[in-house]
Structure formats: C-alpha cells, structure tokens
C-alpha cells in the first residue's frame, strides 16, 4: 500500500511535468500560428479572400489559342508537343526559377485560384516577388486558359506525382532522389535562401502546420518567400499524406513490433512478480 502511494506521487509529478513541457509549452510557443489558423480559417480551400471570377466557365478551344499566345513564350506543354523556349538552366538564370511545364499543372490547382492567378499572379500568390508577370488578360481569356489546361491535365495523378508537380520546382526531396528543377544558386537569388528539403519536413512541421502553411504561406510565416500556390483540397491532402509516408516509412512496422514488445514485457511482469512472491513468501 505504502509503495503504491509512493508510485502515485511519482506518476502525478511526472505527468504534471510532461504536461508542462509538451502540450502546454507547445501551445504557448505556437500561439501565433494557432491564432493565424483561427483568424483565416486555414486551410481555406475556397480561397475566400480572392474575388469570385466574373467568368467561370471557359471555352477550351479558345483557351488553347490564348495559351499559345500568352504562355508558350516561357512555358513548355509536353503533352501537346510544345517545347519550352529555353533549357532549364538558361530559364532559371533569366527568370529566377524554371517555369513549369503546363501539361499537368491544372491537376493540382484550384479553378477559382487559377483564374485569379492568371489575371494577377502577385496578388493571388500573395508574393510580390513572384516571377510570372501579370499578362493583362481579360476575365474570359483567364477562364478559357483555365478550362483548356484543366482539360489536358492528367486525371489520376498519384500523390507522389502531385507532390512533384506542385513542389519540386523549388524543393528537393533528396531521400526520394527527387531534386529541385531549379538550380540552387538561382533559388538562392530568387528566394533569398534554398528552400527546405521535404524528405522529413512532415516530422519537423506536423500535419496541421503543413496544411495551413501550404494553403496560405504568408499568413503563417511572415515574410516567407514561398508563394501561395492555390493547391486544391484533394491534391493538398494527397501531398501532405505523401509527405507523411515518406518521412516515416516504418510506421506500420513500428506499431506491430511495439505491440509484440509490450506483450512480451507484460508476460515478464507476470513472471517476475510470481518469482518475487515465491522468494518473499517467508520473509517478514
């Protein structure tokens, strides 16, 4: 009985300490982030700060013409046989970042965001240094181009493909042998630093932060050079899930082995207790 009381005191003190250094400390240290998440209701997949486009439904055929006119002087579209006008190195040197191939870009980007983005990239991305200039498109053209790009984009992209499509212009995922399309020295000039590698970013940042940050970078990390990319809800979930899986590839194994070890220790508790009882039977 007395020993159980001592154990209880220890358990209570340890739990109070644990509560203090983990949940309490983290909630206080992450207060600003929590507040931003609360204030902007992140992740906001409606992109409610952007205006509803005047024209939402575009004509893909017209969009194709508009795309050729406005986009292909910088971007390639592989599936349509349109090569980029510059090799990646030259492009990165001239623009700061390699302009993405447009074949599948619409597969990961929200429609509303994309129309807004085409009209005013800096405003939509909330990044004044964003490399693509405003092109002076009207509402109809922006909707047409969006409809066209949505039409040609692959429909069933895997989480990994989506991650590469959305992130690998700037980020590497080196544990997966995936390297950023834009060379590091250009990124440093364009963004001020080499963006973090994504191999185990999930462990460093956690699910909630990643969802909020990808959705609206500048509201979570002031002055960040990461632009808002307007990833749609399904794609963002796929991407974060993929980042989770690659950061912790042994999750299943850990659970399985953990249960076996705990079961073994439980048996040991029983056996050692029995032996202790036997030895102590005659001692008083």
């Amino acid at each position, binding site marked *: 009985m007395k020993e159980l009381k001592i154990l209880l005191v220890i358990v209570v003190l340890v739990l109070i300490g644990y509560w203090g250094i983990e949940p309490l400390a983290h909630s206080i240290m992450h207060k600003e982030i929590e507040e931003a998440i609360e204030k902007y209701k992140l992740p906001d997949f409606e992109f409610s700060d952007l205006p509803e486009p005047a024209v939402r439904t575009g004509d893909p055929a017209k969009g194709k013409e508009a795309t050729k006119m406005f986009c292909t002087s910088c971007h390639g579209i592989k599936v349509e046989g349109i090569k980029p006008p510059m090799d990646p190195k030259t492009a990165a040197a001239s623009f700061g970042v390699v302009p993405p191939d447009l074949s599948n870009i619409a597969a990961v980007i929200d429609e509303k965001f994309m129309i807004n983005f085409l009209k005013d990239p800096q405003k939509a991305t909330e990044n004044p240094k964003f490399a693509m200039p405003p092109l002076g498109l009207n509402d109809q053209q922006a909707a047409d181009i969006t409809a066209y790009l949505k039409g040609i984009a692959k429909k069933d992209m895997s989480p990994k493909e989506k991650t590469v499509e959305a992130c690998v212009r700037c980020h590497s995922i080196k544990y997966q042998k995936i390297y950023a399309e834009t060379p590091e020295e250009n990124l440093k000039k364009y963004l001020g*630093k080499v963006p973090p590698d994504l191999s*185990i970013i999930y*462990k*460093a940042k956690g699910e909630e932060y990643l969802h909020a940050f990808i959705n609206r970078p500048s509201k979570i990390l002031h002055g960040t050079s990461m632009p808002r990319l307007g990833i749609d809800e399904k794609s963002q979930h796929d991407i974060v899930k993929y980042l989770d899986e690659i*950061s912790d590839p042994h999750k299943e194994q*850990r659970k399985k082995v953990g249960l076996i070890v705990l079961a073994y220790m439980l048996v040991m*508790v029983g056996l*050692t*207790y029995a032996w202790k009882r036997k030895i*102590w039977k005659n001692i008083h």
Partner: protein
Amino acid sequence: MAKKGGLMKWLDERLAISELWRVMMSEYYLPKNINFLWSFGVLTMLVFVILVVTGIILLMYYKPDSKLAFDSVNKTIMMDVSYGWVFRHTHAVGASIMFLVLFIHMARGIYYGSYKAPREVVWVTGFILFVLMSATAFTGYLLPWGQMSYWAAQTITTLFEKIPFIGPDLVIWIRGNYIVEDATLTRFFALHVTLLPALILVFTVIHMYAVRIVGSNNEDGIPMTKEEKKKNGIPFWPVFMSKEFFVMSVFLLFFFYLVFFNYGFAMDPINFQPANYLQTPPHIYPEWYFLAFYEVLRGFFFSETLGLIAFVASMFLPLFLPWLDRSPIVSGKHRPLFRIMFWIFIIDFVFLTILGKLPPTGLFAWLGFIGAIVYFIFFFSLPIISFIEKKQVASGGGQQ
C-alpha cells in the same frame, strides 16, 4: 553458485569467484525497511546498458561529419538499416529516461538522508556520475546535427564566454572554431563515445564499491552493523534482486511504450531540420532534464553574470549536501521541518522544468526568478534545520 563443477572449481581456484559472489551478492545484506525506490540504482545501470548497446549499433552507421551526420541519422539509420529506427528511438528515449530515473534516485537519497555519514563518498561519486551523464547527454545531443542540436550547443557553449579572463578563448577552445562547426561535432562525438562512457563506468564501479562498504541506507535512517543486517536484513541475491526484476519489468513496459508509441518528447520536431548557422529557430531550449537548471540561469533575467553564477551553483550545490545538512537525524521520515522544505524543493524543481521551456517574457520571467530563489532556499535552509534539530536531539526530543 552452490554446485562446483570442473570449470567453476578451476576458475574459483584462480579468481575466487565464489568469494566474490558471496561478498557482492549472496551475503551482501540490505535492510528490510526499504521500498521500491531503492531499486532505482540498479535501474540506472539497466538504462546505461541499454544506452551502450544501442549506442554501439548506432555507431556502426553514424557519420561524425557536419555534411553527413544529419542524413546518416535521419536517412541511413531511420530508413535504410533494418530496425535502425528501433535503436535510434531506444537510444533517444533511453537518454531522456536515464535522467528521470537519476532524478528519482537522487530525490530518494535526499529524502532519506542517504548522503549523510558514513555515505558521503557514495553521494559524491553519485553526483560525479550525474555530471558525467549530463556531459554525455549534452555532447550526444549535438550528434544528429539538427537545428535544435546546433543551437542548443551554440547557446550553452556561449555561456562560457562570461568566465572572467579566459572566457572568450575558452569558448573557441571548446568549439574548435569561432562558431559551432564540424570541429565541434567531431570532438563532441569523440567525448560522447569514448572518454565520457569510460569515466561513467569507472565511477559506477567506485560508487558500487562504496555502497558495498557502508551498506544501503533505509527508510528510518537507522544505522545497522553488518551483524544486525545479517540477522534482520535481506540478502542482495536472490531476495532483493527478485523484487528488482519485477520493478525492472514494470519499468521496461513503460519504457518500451515510450519507445514505440510516445517518443515525441525525446525527439524534438525542430531537430528534424538540418543545422543551419544562418537561421536561428524562434525558440531554443535544452532537453527537458536541463530545463530546471536552465530556468535558474534565465531566472536572473536582469543580470547575465548573476544568472550564470546561479546556474553553476544550482548544478553543483547538491554535491555539498552532506556538509550543508549536519543534522544527527538521518531520514526525512523523522524530520518534519526538512520534509516541508523537501516537498517545496521537489515542486519547485517541476515548476522550474515547466517554465524552462516557456518564453522568458513578462510574467514568466518573474515566476522564473521566484522559482530560482526557492531552489536556493532549500539548500540554505538545511544548516538552519540542522541547527534546530541538533538542539532538539540534545534536549532529548526528536527521534533517531
């Protein structure tokens, strides 16, 4: 060891192993009035063995080079080596839990007055083991070369700058560079895997030897001669150890639960970002077991020098317990005044630990200051309590 076969007899004639077994185990007697807190000494040894075994496995894959260290830990060990993650988790959680076990072991020693005559050497060697363990933990924490590794090492080594005259040079000498860099990593690695564990081993032997000479204390702090213990006590083997194995099993159940299902407290998220000397993380804090001492340092927020002195004092004051507390009454069980101060001290320690991780601003700064003062009040109350108790004993009051 009752039977003596051929080999046993042969060894016994040359090494006197049955005599050794008798002295160390089967005829080493402990008092009966002890509780399971007396099992924590052997638990520290168990955790130490776990750390050494997992450490050796990690050593086979770890690369002590600032360009390779982070990936060798987070990729090679955590992803590629089969079951490498088990060893890393066990090592990280083991280091953390070592301090929990040590703190309980030390608190038991303080409560029951186990540092008093004739056990001063036991206490002092134990304290040295605590310092060595802290140094091992601190050097080891740099090795994964993550952001928190780096900035914790950077912050703590900067503290040495304040030492008069030699400070700035000393910092460079410790780091091997003007900032924490590759040279720091390799020297911390060398100390972590060779000198420090070797010293821990040496002092463990002395610590145990000293305990074998003076014997364990007991709940009531009653001194017992060897004969009394033989008559009324229990032998270390098999009686004490049969209980110890049970305590160990319960402990390991808890330990492996942490290793597999709740390891976050021992592996800070920020440390999964590689060290970057150009980017300071918004919050820098040491591992939880240094937080109380760290908070004493920050508690004197108005004076860096004072904070530093307090920090050093907070770590080394426990060493002087046998001389601060000269009361003839040994165990806290029979010392009401001491008991009040003890529990204030324990609560204050938990309080400081919690505060140590919070940002030191506004109210938290002042709470830290109060916590730091209370920490010292415990130590300085001891001579006063001793004085009062000495008088009581002299006048026939108080029990022994």
